[in-house]
């Protein structure tokens, strides 16, 4: 067996998976997106751009997604970074593993059930009731974009914490001593050494969370009360309710293209930020 054929053999499972789970479905979606809806739903072969022309009908869903996905990513980052920093830099090494496990523990339960828990926390008998007890009356949290944001941050926090944690954990602590030795206060050391050194982790975490948020539908459906509508929710309705496969495919294809464009732009930005750095490894 030649080296080349061995390599091909090694790649075969991944290649087959890639073909069956990604290339073929995407091709089908692309073909469907130029078709038409059947009378009782489904797909009728055709070649028309009508479905793409109809995209503005889902503009609101795209707008919501394009606002809430970056907002959710940013919010996750702002909460995850201090946590990851504490775990990696400050936490007592004896407790580090325990604390890390605590970060993962929620992942043992389905996101569905965890999101349901938030219905009760954010509902009238939860946090608003506590606020009412201290005199802040009639706070409505559940079924708002804010509730969706909370659900997103809660659901995706570990995905943000881990890359940053790994990055900070690997950070040579002697660099922090060196910075201090050279006259930088702890805060300036953070800004000039820790933060720039953890950029790869931040970039990875943001990418992971952002990509998943672009396709999100569960959290807005549960915590947005059906009023906060992502592209993912539009797709679920198009395929399962109105059974408009052609238009659904056009929306899906547009989402994929949008994601590709955004992620490519993002990767280029990160590359430029860490231009000559050897240790910018994104994934």
């Amino acid at each position, binding site marked *: 067996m030649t080296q080349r054929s061995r390599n091909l053999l090694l790649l075969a499972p991944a290649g087959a998976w890639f073909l069956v789970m990604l290339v073929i479905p995407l091709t089908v979606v692309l073909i469907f997106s130029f078709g038409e809806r059947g009378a009782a739903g489904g797909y009728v072969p055709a070649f028309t751009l009508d479905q793409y022309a109809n995209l503005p009908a889902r503009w609101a869903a795209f707008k919501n997604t394009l606002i809430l996905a970056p907002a959710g990513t940013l919010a996750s980052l702002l909460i995850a970074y201090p946590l990851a920093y504490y775990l990696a830099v400050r936490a007592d090494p004896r407790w580090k593993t325990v604390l890390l496990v605590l970060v993962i523990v929620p992942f043992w339960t389905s996101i569905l059930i965890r999101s349901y828990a938030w219905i009760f926390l954010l509902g009238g008998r939860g946090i608003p009731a506590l606020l009412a007890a201290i005199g802040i009356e009639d706070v409505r949290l559940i079924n708002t974009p804010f509730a969706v944001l909370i659900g997103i941050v809660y659901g995706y926090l570990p995905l943000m914490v881990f890359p940053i944690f790994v990055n900070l954990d690997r950070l*040579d602590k*002697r*660099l922090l*001593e*060196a*910075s*201090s*030795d*050279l*006259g*930088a*206060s*702890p805060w*300036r*050391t953070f800004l*000039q*050494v820790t933060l*720039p*050194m953890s950029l790869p982790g931040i970039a990875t975490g943001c990418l992971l969370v952002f990509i998943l948020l672009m396709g999100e539908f569960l959290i807005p459906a549960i915590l947005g009360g059906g009023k906060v509508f992502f592209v993912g929710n539009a797709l679920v309705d198009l395929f399962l309710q109105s059974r408009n496969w052609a238009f659904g495919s056009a929306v899906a294809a547009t989402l994929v293209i949008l994601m590709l464009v955004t992620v490519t732009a993002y990767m280029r930005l990160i590359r430029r930020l*860490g231009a*000559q*750095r*050897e*240790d910018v490894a994104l994934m």
Partner: protein
Amino acid sequence: MNKAAYAPPPSKATLGPIAELRNVSKRFGDILAADGLDLSIMSGEFLSFLGPSGCGKTTALRILAGFEAPTTGEVLLDGEIVNDLDPFRRPVNMVFQHYALFPHLTVAQNIGYGLRQRRPRPPRDEIERKVKTALEIVRLEGFEDRRIWEMSGGQQQRVALARAIVNEPKLLLLDEPMAALDRKLRKEMQIELQNIQRRLGMTFILVTHDQEEALSMSDRICIMRDGRIVQTGTPRELYDQPRNRYVAGFVGTSNFFDGVVESVAADQAQVSVKGGIVLAGRAISPVAVGQEVSVSVRPEQIRLERANAADRPGWPVTILNRIFLGEHTEYLVKHESLGEFMVLTPRQAELSDGPFNAGERLMALWEAGGALVLKQD
């Protein structure tokens, strides 16, 4: 050439020590890493902490840098107690063992880092000028815009040095700076480091476990063991007048014959060693009759002769091994009572009487002044 830029800062230290440790101890849990350190460091001197790993030399350095606060005792810089002064507020800089250069910054940015932390922040052109000067001093002109990972180990070491000296610290601390360099590069750097120190007149404190490095570079050496300072002195003092067997063993090599003091007259002691043999030697510090001591004889103090001169006592030995070292030849010999010991004979001596061969039976002898009676510790 750059002397003007790095004239030693005006200091009260011309009148007294620039840094002092007064009965400094540091405890980590159950471990006493530093135990009652007393030391005065003079302005402009090159001082080394020498000892095996775990002896407390790095702890002493970190206490001076401010990374560790002493458990008891006082640390003084320029006459002021600085026990609780944060490292970033101390006029002290360190060259780290593995350099700890910032990988996300260029060479010039690394070197200018300390200057940029100053408040008020110096003007950009002043920083640039100082960085350039520092690069010249470490002979890295033109490397300003390189990335750290593009530099070799030796070059990184120079960058680390430049990053420290550019701040004109009152103390420059070097934590085993040459440990990661290969032997040849290490030799070159030792000489260069010494030159830079002389030229700048800066106070250097070096931590090393390499006695050769310490002996060749330092004005003074501080020998440490188990968290304590055993002896501080010039290399010659330590070599000629070691306080105890440990120092004699650490500075140069020596043959030790353990025994018990039989009699003392002035600084001369008679020591009974193995096989009922009594050796005479000069006691560096006072010893008492009955005390367990070691008689130390440096290998180069011992002569080998084929014929025994009747007026001098000699020890009949057999040559076990011979190593030719060029200027010297090193012999491992064995006396039936004293056991094995080393002899180093100069080439000069070989020309008249040697060379000697393995298995040959000879007389080994030394001058009375060549033997030192040392306390065990």
